[in-house]
């Protein structure tokens, strides 16, 4: 009677075939063999000529050991061969499991659909019926039904089906609640089809995988429950050879022959183990929440190769990165480069924007600069300096103390970056307390000040709010307050406005600009949105496939893109001043995954200006005359008419 039935939740839609593909072949074979044994066992009981194999008593064979007196696994106290008894027992168990599963699934599916898709009143009634049913523990109901109807296999079947449907209905209802908001359902509804038609034709096929998973649980539950009830005398009655009955008799006569008990236990454990494992694999596919990613090695700064002695770093440079490479540590022990040779130098109070498509390595580079890479990533080459000190040389304790004071970071999903169980104010205070001594009152005042500085007016109210109570824009402000509470010298903003609407984006950018002039921070702003970055950054770095392809002053890069990728990136955005006839040009293809980078120029396969050399030689990031850096064998030449046009627009 496993507890898991009531506690799983799943993401819908998966084909049955892809489900089975995720199960290891050996396990599939084991489950298949049990099914076959069940069918053979069922035939043994149903075909009169064969059933005497199961029931025929022979006193001369009583308590026979395995492989003696013409038996394979020995015989029980009445001389009936154990192997036939067990086969028949599997037949009874799997047959009753099939019956329970079919009844419970049909009722559960119907009720789940009714509750999830046929209005609020129906939903309330269905939920109430489920809760009332679920108040009776399954085994308790089975015992009571067995008492009223008289013990027997069929009463066990009814009793289990009458409670287990509620578990199925609960899961199906939850899935329908998700499914009904999905586009394909909304679309069919808009076409005016009846709810019944949609429920049967469109929803049910998507619910089948969940039904299959629940069914494997039901089968395991039925087998255990039937055997348990038979064992205490409320299930199958002699001479019905159910597994529980065989075990109960084996237990009674264990001192004369241990074999029936031994083989009976082994059969039932093997059967339930393989069914549970089967269910686990199905759940891994169906319930992505359950399939947790194991932490990987890495996450710390470690260098595989010896580095040349550091050059003297000017103390005016708040942050310097020299040829940093970040490797992804795979589970099989191999390493793949995610960022290579990243170099950057930021003076105090400056702002740089890092742009690129997703997968370009911009976020990974940012995390490397923050001194804390996510687990599974590690710095494989290069150095990162905070205020002229190589952070790899800072002892862990001191480094932790510097975190938050030197670098503050905000993320795209501000809500996920806060613990949902504590109020905003408490969490910000906690970070403050970890670094700054002082009274609780002084800390609170400082947090309140910071909340109002990030534009959360009425900070005392927001102090006690929980993350789920704030809107996206408010939440990003709260995250900013948390990042800035220790007045860091550097703020790294990783797509902080991406999930927000345009008006809120603009407000956040204005806010950060204002805070920068007040507090004098250095800012690294990461985005895929060139226009947004150009509002705040003096310098722009364009990244592609883990490396910098172009860097320069924002104005220069906006006016004239030298790298073909930058040109593509800027051409692909809409613009109010665009002539109606000109078309948006998206860069064809997509960023290659780390590990699949072309050996020479990584952009070559997507490039319009590709030359023969691009397939042979990896281009270096070369400084150009205007202070710009470009990694290209064939950069775009200056185009005067484009330049004039853009300048006219800008002025």
């Amino acid at each position, binding site marked *: 009677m496993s*507890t898991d039935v009531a506690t799983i939740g799943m993401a819908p839609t998966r084909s049955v075939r892809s489900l089975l593909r995720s199960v290891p072949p050996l396990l599939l074979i084991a489950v298949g063999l049990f099914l076959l044994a069940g069918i053979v066992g069922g035939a043994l009981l149903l075909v009169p000529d064969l059933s005497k194999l199961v029931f025929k008593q022979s006193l001369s064979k009583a308590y026979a050991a395995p492989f003696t007196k013409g038996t394979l696994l020995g015989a029980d106290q009445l001389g009936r061969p154990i192997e036939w008894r067990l086969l028949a027992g599997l037949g009874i168990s799997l047959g009753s499991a099939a019956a329970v599963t079919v009844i419970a699934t049909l009722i559960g599916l119907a009720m789940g659909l009714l509750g999830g898709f046929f209005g609020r009143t129906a939903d309330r009634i269905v939920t109430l019926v489920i809760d*009332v049913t679920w108040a009776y523990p399954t085994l*308790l109901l089975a015992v009571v039904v067995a008492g009223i109807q008289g013990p027997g296999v069929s009463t066990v079947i009814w009793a289990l089906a009458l409670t287990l449907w509620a578990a199925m209905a609960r899961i199906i209802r939850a899935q329908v609640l998700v499914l009904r908001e999905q586009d394909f359902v909304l679309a069919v509804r808009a076409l005016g089809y009846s709810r019944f038609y949609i429920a049967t034709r469109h929803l049910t096929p998507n619910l089948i995988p969940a039904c299959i998973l629940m069914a494997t649980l039901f089968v395991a539950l039925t087998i255990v429950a039937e055997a348990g009830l038979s064992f205490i005398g409320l299930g199958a009655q002699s001479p019905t050879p159910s597994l529980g009955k065989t075990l109960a008799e084996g237990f009674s006569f264990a001192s004369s022959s241990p074999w029936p008990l031994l083989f009976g236990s082994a059969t039932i454990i093997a059967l339930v183990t393989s069914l549970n494992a089967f269910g686990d694999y199905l759940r891994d596919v169906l319930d992505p929440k359950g399939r947790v990613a194991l932490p990987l090695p890495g996450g710390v700064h470690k260098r595989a190769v010896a580095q040349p002695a550091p050059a003297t770093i000017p103390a005016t440079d708040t942050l310097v990165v020299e040829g940093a490479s970040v490797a992804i540590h795979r589970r099989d022990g191999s390493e793949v480069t995610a960022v290579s040779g990243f170099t950057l130098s930021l003076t105090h109070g400056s702002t740089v924007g890092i742009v690129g498509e997703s997968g370009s390595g911009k976020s990974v580079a940012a995390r490397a600069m923050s001194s804390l890479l996510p687990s599974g990533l590690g710095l494989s080459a290069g150095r990162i300096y905070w205020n002229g000190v190589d952070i790899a040389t800072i002892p862990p304790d001191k480094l932790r103390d510097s975190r938050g004071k030197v670098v503050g970071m905000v993320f795209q999903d501000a809500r996920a970056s806060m613990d949902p169980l504590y109020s905003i104010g408490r969490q910000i205070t906690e970070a403050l307390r970890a670094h700054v001594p002082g009274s609780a009152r002084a800390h609170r005042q400082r947090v309140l000040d910071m909340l109002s500085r990030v534009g959360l007016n009425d900070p005392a109210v927001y102090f006690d709010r929980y993350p789920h109570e704030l*809107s996206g824009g408010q939440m990003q402000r709260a995250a900013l307050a948390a990042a800035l509470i220790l007045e860091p010298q550097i703020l790294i903003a990783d797509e902080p406005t991406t999930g927000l609407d345009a008006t809120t984006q603009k407000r956040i950018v204005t806010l950060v600009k204002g805070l920068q002039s007040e507090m004098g921070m250095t800012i690294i702003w990461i985005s895929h949105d060139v226009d947004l970055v150009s509002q705040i950054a003096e310098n722009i770095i364009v990244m592609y496939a883990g490396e910098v392809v172009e860097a320069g002053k924002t104005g220069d890069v906006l006016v004239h893109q030298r790298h073909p990728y930058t040109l593509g990136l800027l051409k692909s955005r809409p613009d109010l001043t665009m002539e109606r006839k000109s078309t948006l040009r998206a860069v064809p293809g997509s960023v290659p995954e780390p590990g699949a980078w072309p050996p020479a120029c990584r952009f070559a396969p997507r490039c319009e200006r590709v030359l023969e050399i691009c397939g042979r030689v990896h281009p270096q990031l070369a400084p150009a005359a205007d202070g710009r850096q470009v990694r290209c064998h064939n950069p775009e030449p200056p185009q005067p008419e484009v330049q004039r046009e853009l300048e006219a627009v800008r002025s």
Partner: protein
Amino acid sequence: MTATAPNDALKTSVGQPSCPTCRLLVGIGGQVLYSLLVLLLVATVAFVGLRLAPGDVTTQLLDPVRTPPEQFVALRRELGLDLPIWHQFWNYLIGIFRGDLGASLLTRESVVAIVAQAGGYTVSLALAAFCIIYVLAIPLGILAATFAGTLTDKVINFVASMLMATPNFVLAILLVNILALNLGWLPVAGTGTWLHLILPAMVLAAEPMGFATRLVRTSYIEQANAQYVDTMRLKGMSEHVIRWRHIMRNALLPVISLAAVQVRTLVGYTLIVETIFRWPGLGKRLVDSVLTRDYQVAQGLTILLALVVVVSTLVSSILYRVVDPRVRAS
């Protein structure tokens, strides 16, 4: 989500009290009322279910062939069975409301007396099982999660899976044979000393413990990988605070609802485990009453055990509201 200016009023639903504690109390009140409704229906189903049993209770008490009919009429009147069905139902509900769960027709013993006598055994058994489950499952789950992917993790996971796959009566046979019959460390069955409690409690706890261990492990790994943990590290907070105050609290939240589910599971298991170990608790009394066709006792005990399930569900959802601010308002 629409654009929100910083000075926008905070979202408050119309018709809801504004202070958080009031909202919490209103939510809890609603749940209590709902649970009462569920209980009423549970009692109704039990009443109807008993009427579906074959034969009249009087035919069990009196010999239908030899007893004169007037004796039947007298007994029916005495038991209130001559009243219209709705009147019987009303009396039955009033009885439950007053704490009267009926009485055995065979021994005249009231269900309340049976509960007073057997309840303690079941409560001590279930409590012992609960202690075993969570005292072991939570540290083991966290240990497995902390060393996820290593041998420690694999061993714990394997043991948990085996506990889940072994039916409790099979485990009972195994443990009785090894610990009681072969080694003689523990008594085989029955009551008397606290040693008698160990075997049934272990058997009762095994499967739920395996499941709880795996749940805690999954939940902990999920929380340890959450983005807020990274953000806290970036703020330079100590691993100690992050782990014990944040990851742990989030990771153990699902245990609250699991515990309620497992109360239901344990109630079902006690029927089998108490019978096997001849443990004179409510489960064994229920099985005995079913076997002797003492339906009044079966009905009373069923309602009582269903009450335990409903109340534990209620308690767990109230706890959830108190602990998880996200659920509080809804």
